[in-house]
């Protein structure tokens, strides 16, 4: 998988600090599976995080109580390494493992289906955009980060294919359309509602024959 678009460095830094919303952290982890470059950046930020943690003033801790628990705790064999990944919501797991046919898509507009995963602090949206679909110009009231899982789309910023991440902030307006003959399936981590620029946008008119 060749990756051309990565999460913003600030997003990777916040991932390392554990301070992303759950939706965005899940999305970043999907990207990290495909991208050694970003894994390296995350590791650098984790090193800094560890140093920041170590530079804390100290708090008093309970040594005897801890030692008692330690003596009751068995060590695990070396092959049981720690998985750093967040537990994935079922529908996301199904989508990643078996593809978009697994998802009970809801119709939103011509060419556009979605499925919402509500998390404690944010929303992870799964999007399925039919070939030849055109999304009207919109910007975002907060942040929106998109990762392509299958198919491709294009907007003012370029062409986004599987593994690519579009990390937009609230000042960016864009107008994406799908590429190719496959549906474009994306993950979208949302913190705020979409804000359409036109009152009556040429909303979701599929244009055929790209």
């Amino acid at each position, binding site marked *: 998988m060749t990756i051309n678009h990565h999460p*913003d460095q600030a997003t990777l830094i916040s991932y390392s600090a554990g*301070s*992303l919303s*759950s939706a965005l952290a899940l999305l970043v982890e999907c990207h990290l599976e495909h991208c050694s470059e970003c894994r390296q950046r995350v590791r650098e930020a984790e*090193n800094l995080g560890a*140093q920041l943690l170590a530079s804390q003033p100290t708090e008093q801790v309970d040594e005897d109580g801890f*030692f008692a628990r330690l003596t009751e705790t068995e060590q*695990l064999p*070396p092959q049981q390494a*720690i998985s750093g990944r967040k537990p994935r919501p079922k529908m996301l797991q199904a989508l990643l493992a078996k593809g978009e046919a697994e998802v009970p898509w809801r119709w939103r507009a011509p060419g556009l289906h979605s499925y919402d995963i509500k998390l404690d602090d944010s929303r992870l949206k799964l999007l399925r955009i039919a070939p030849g679909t055109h999304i009207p110009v919109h910007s975002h009231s907060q942040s929106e980060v998109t990762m392509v899982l299958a198919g491709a789309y294009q907007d003012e910023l370029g062409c986004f294919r599987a593994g690519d991440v579009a990390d937009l902030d609230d000042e960016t307006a864009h107008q994406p359309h799908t590429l190719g003959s496959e549906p474009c399936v994306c993950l979208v981590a949302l913190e705020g509602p979409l804000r359409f620029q036109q009152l009556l946008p040429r909303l979701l008119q599929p244009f055929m024959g790209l």
Partner: protein
Amino acid sequence: MSTAAPEPAERDWNQCLVEVGQGGNKEQFMAFYRHFAPRLKAWLIGQGGQRDQAEELAQEAMLKAWRHAPSFDPSKASASTWLYTIARNLLSDLGRKQQREQKFIARQSAEQEAMPAVEQAQWQMPELDRQQLAAALKQLPNRQAQVIYQCFYQGRSHSEIAANMGLPLGSVKSSLRLGFNKLCEMVGKP
């Protein structure tokens, strides 16, 4: 800084954890605990935990480190980074929303002095790189230091920092990048 014997350097903590993983020596692990748990607890309190919750979570992270010590591999991550990721993951598994609500309650009174804390903090860093880090943080422009502080010490998302500081999201992200890159340059990549 007035206390006790000199602390082992980072390399020795790696060695310590490797040996704990191979031999299961509890006394040796307690040395690791005595060094890291007090800092871990302080960090968890900063993230919004009450003292007893922070203590419990620090112990859990330490027990997890003990259980998994046999799979610790210093060529992949240093002992402190490994422990940091364990604690960070435990914290985020707690559920951000609930944790946030507590944070905001705990924070209301402390809000005014949120960031100056970085400058006023009693840094207790026996190791050279920690002194360098404290000095480096103080050298950052205020906005960058604030953003780094809220991101790493308070677990705030970009949007939360933006709302808190009255900045556009884009400025939060660029301040975070700039501050982070400067810090890395100043302390050297570990």
